[in-house]
């Protein structure tokens, strides 16, 4: 079949369940000791250096990386399990998650040896936070419209321009930024962009908060004013960023964070509806659980294909499209179902606060990391339509 779509029925191997038990025990201890509040709101936005250090000490950051850089040479599926359990516990992983998922792998592939030796072990220790400098005021989904310039100077590059919607920039140590080093080519408008490693403590950088509608702060504007970057901070080939990062993108799009970030909505829904809901409540829960289970199977399938060295870009885009749209609809469906429940005031209060948080976060899910529209374009290309 021309458009056959492979989603192999990959199961997590048994050894990952041992690890899952360890992660659950660690998180339960942390919660019991007041290390973090599992109901502290949208976990992905919470930065907690001391928590990241503990996770690093457990060996759960950079799990798949080589030992010589502080990694642990474990499997991608083991990393998957750790990610899942952190999401379920509402753990504040912001201090290390971006570096673990994508910045570290980019450095591993493209950074010079001394930089790898310097930075990667600090990431795996939970000591080093990364952010991603992609979007600009006039360049969001259209990434290749980026205008922030990198001009060659003696021994390096001079950066001028600004990035926006940069999550975590206000506490991150480094950014991996996408800057324009040449004009687009006539036959390839994606040409001319280069990835750089940016030390956010360097002079020439101003970071300003951009608040969410809720008043919370995670987005930033990052302004570069004659920032000088050393020549060896170029990551990959100059002008050729568009060729890089395909498997990184597949990881970014297909992970469990694409449908588990506000999973407490479903758990609190089950609590509010009680042990024996009416058929409407039962059916509602059943559908949501079936959909979640299917998303998880798809996501694990992609993780398995990535672990086997494949680049399932089409499948990864589908996981993000289906996963984020499912998660976005979740608070609305849960709200409808819970409206009939006669639950204890305590359970109800928890549910209401979880729903409020998830409802406010929902619009962001289908925008960050590739909009629904961009993803469907990628899927259409995979189908041979463009």
């Amino acid at each position, binding site marked *: *079949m*021309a*458009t*056959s*779509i492979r*989603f*192999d*029925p990959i*199961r997590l191997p048994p050894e990952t*369940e041992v690890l*899952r038990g360890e992660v659950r025990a660690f998180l339960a201890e942390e919660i019991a000791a007041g290390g973090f509040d599992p109901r502290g709101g949208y976990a992905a936005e919470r930065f907690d250096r001391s928590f990241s250090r503990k996770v690093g000490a457990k060996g759960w950051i950079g799990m798949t990386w080589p030992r010589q850089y502080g990694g642990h040479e474990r499997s991608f599926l083991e990393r998957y399990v750790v990610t*899942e359990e952190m999401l*379920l516990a509402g753990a504040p992983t912001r201090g290390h998650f971006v570096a673990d998922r994508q910045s570290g792998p980019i450095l591993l592939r493209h950074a010079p040896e001394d930089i790898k030796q310097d930075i990667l072990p600090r990431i795996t220790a939970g000591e080093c936070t990364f952010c991603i400098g992609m979007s600009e005021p006039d360049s969001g989904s259209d990434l290749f419209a980026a205008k922030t310039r990198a001009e060659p100077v003696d021994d390096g590059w001079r950066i001028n321009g600004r990035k926006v919607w940069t999550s975590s920039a206000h506490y991150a140590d480094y950014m991996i930024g996408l800057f324009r080093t040449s004009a687009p080519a006539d036959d390839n408008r994606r040409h001319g962009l280069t990835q750089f490693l940016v030390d956010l403590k360097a002079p020439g950088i101003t970071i300003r908060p951009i608040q969410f509608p809720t008043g919370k702060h995670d987005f930033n504007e990052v302004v570069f004013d004659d920032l000088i970057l050393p020549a060896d901070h170029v990551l990959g080939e100059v002008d050729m960023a568009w060729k890089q990062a395909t498997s990184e993108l597949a990881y970014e799009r297909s992970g469990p964070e694409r449908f588990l970030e506000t*999973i407490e909505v*479903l*758990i*609190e829904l*089950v*609590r509010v*509806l*009680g*042990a*024996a*809901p009416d*058929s409407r*409540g*039962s*059916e*509602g*829960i*059943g*559908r949501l*659980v*079936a*959909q*979640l*289970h*299917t*998303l*998880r*199977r*798809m996501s694990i*399938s992609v993780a398995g294909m990535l672990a086997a060295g494949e680049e399932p870009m089409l*499948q990864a885009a*589908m996981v993000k*499209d*289906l996963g984020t749209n499912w998660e976005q609809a979740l608070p609305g469906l849960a709200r409808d179902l819970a409206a009939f429940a006669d639950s204890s005031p305590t359970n109800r209060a928890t549910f209401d606060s979880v729903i409020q948080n998830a409802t406010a976060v929902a619009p962001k899910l289908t925008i960050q990391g590739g909009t629904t*529209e961009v*993803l*469907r*374009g990628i*899927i*259409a290309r*995979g*189908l*041979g*339509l*463009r």
Partner: protein
Amino acid sequence: MAEADTIVVDVATRIFQDLGDPQTVNNAGDDSWRAPLWQALTDSGLTLAWVPETAGGSGGARADGFAVLGLAGAHAVTLPLAETLLGGWLLAESGLEAPQGPIAVAPTRHQDRLTLAQDGTLAGTACQVPFARDCDSLALAAEGADGPVVALVAGHDCAIRPGLNLAGEAKDDVIFDGARPRLIAPAGADRDALMLMGAAARAMQMAGALQTLLDLSVRYAGERKAFGRPIAKFQVIQHDLARLAGETAAAVAAANSAGAAIEASERVDAGLLLDVAAAKIRVGEAAGTGAAIAHQVHGAIGYTKEHILHRFTHRLWSWRDDFGPESVWATRLGESVAAAGADELWPTITAA
């Protein structure tokens, strides 16, 4: 996990292509294609793949049967292949020999219950049994005086109230009252097991049909020109097809997961509820959404008898109901999740 045997898959693919091509069947206007296709499936041992060789079957893995059903769905095969596989399996699990020829299974709805009285006669009606009147034999799961039983009944020993599904396939009410089974045994697999196995089988067929639906839609969008270009070049059509692809992918993943879980499981029992219910629910949802998109993309030509699209969409709509529709499985799954409690939800999902 054991994969399906590639030889089985190759044989089935060739048979469906040669003798069950949807366009040829659609053009035929009669049943002339039916006997040769069934004969080829029987001769190659595919109809009794889930019956051990010692019991007269071909002793295939469950994965083999599920793979064949996916292909059958992809060709919109209108024969009681899934039913005969299931019937053979149900009988074999209880140590009964499978008869020659097509077998229908009952019941196929959660609410239908059959009983076997002390005097050896059956009571009860199984509604909407696919292909009942086309089969000489009916394998059924019933409640006996001493527990669940499996029995084989001759078709002419029951009363049949004929019906049709949307795709024109027999879907009959079978009235078992007073019928005396030819064979009876204590159930090695009971009624719940039959519903689980049947739901997984239909999920595989539907996932296969959705793959062809996607194929047909992508191809048509590339061929059909409007406003001076192929409609596949319009972004709105591209996004419709991307959604169809996503639904198809979800269906394939969910059905494969259920098939793999059954393949890996010693017994077909309640331990498979999450995987099988999720498959029937999610594939059923994909069938509804996917069929609507495919018709919209095809425009008026897709709403004709001449075009083969209906062979897939009508079956998808119909198959959703067999062995429990989405709503019934969702209610059962939801009840089970709720009874276990909120804090067991995630452990249940990760344990599956």
